[in-house]
């Protein structure tokens, strides 16, 4: 089953960059994963996230408050 990678953020530049990096990482690793944007502020808050951009893999939050580097993104994808 494909991994679900959620990127949280209210559409700011940093969040868009995060999405791009995650997509690149997925492509380079060749893993089966889909990226989903979560922009609804109530949804973001109800997940307990206070710093965006944030990333969750299959529902588990793995990074908050920063843009990952490509290496970090790959690590996130392989370890979760």
């Amino acid at each position: 089953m494909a991994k679900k990678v959620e990127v949280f953020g209210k559409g700011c530049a940093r969040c868009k960059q995060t999405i791009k990096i995650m997509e690149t990482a997925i492509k380079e690793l060749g893993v089966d994963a889909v990226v989903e944007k979560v922009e609804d502020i109530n949804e973001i808050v109800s997940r307990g996230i206070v710093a965006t951009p944030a990333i969750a893999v299959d529902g588990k939050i793995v990074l908050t408050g920063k843009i990952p580097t490509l290496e970090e993104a790959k690590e996130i994808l392989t370890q979760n």
Partner: protein
Amino acid sequence: MSELKIFLLIALVFVLFYFVPFDSPIVAQSILNGFKMLNDYARQHVLLCLVPAFFIAGTISAMLKKDAVLKLLGPNAKRFVSYPVAAVSGAILAVCSCTILPLFGGIYKKGAGIGPATTFLFAGPAINVAAIFLTARVLGWDLGIARMLATITAAVFIGLTMELLFREKGSGGFVTAQGNEGDLRGVVFFLLQLSFMILAGLRINNNVKNVGLGLIGASTLMMATFGFEREKTKLWLSETWDFAKKILPYLFVGVFLAGVITKLLPEEIVVRLLGRNDLWSTLVASVIGAFMYFATLTEVPIVQALRELGMAKGPTLALLMAGNSLSLPSMIVITKLLGKKKAFTYFALVVLFSTIFGMLYGVVD
């Protein structure tokens, strides 16, 4: 940007160039004054205030660990801790306005509840290093300090009132997954740069100042080169660059527009609406501030322009206080998070307390 937006933008520029009578002296003067004001900012404030401020913002986001502060705003924190922390923690938690709303929502629903959350929301945008120092340099130290103190105090009052009215506490706590982001070195590095900015703003003997700035600058450089892992320094620089990129274009446009309106806006209107330290002028300033959107830091040149046109001191403080924490776009998001009743109460409180503190400042003066 969608195609429609691009089209509208081009159409707008076209209409502007089609209709503006560039030959008339008032237009020519206004535009010239816009450039003069840019000239002034470039000479006075960019190198010694804005550039250090960006580096400090970069330090905060790349090198300081925020978990400890966040814990003080969590669901189990004591009231007498969470209120003051909420009022001042914006300085390190909310370096950019787009980070404030999720934090506010988090504190409200998952953390210390509606009181500290609204305290944070009101103080957050005004309490950052860049805003305080630029206000102080451009509008005078008394106004810079008044802005800071009034914002912190009003924020606590607003939060307490909201809690008294609605009594909502959050639960659940926050999820943070930042990794090993910061340690003591980060704090030292931060304080070093902060002292650079403070020193740059002091009115002391120029030689003493320059030697001091040189020393602090050199230590900062040393620490940046040898004190951290390569990766970390890179992150610091890229975060700094990110802030500069995001803020400077808007600020330059804001400064230019401020220069233009200084000539274009008739003085009588400003004096009539905002010219006295009375209830009417201060209230008008608060309401304008609450609705108007200021991009980060642009409130400073705009307020500077209005001051030159005759805005009194009380309304100035009120405009700065309400202007920073509310705008039409942020009102929409806040309403979505809080619901209409609570959101409108909050807006009313912002206008009320900005007016009260503006009046107080106007009277004292």
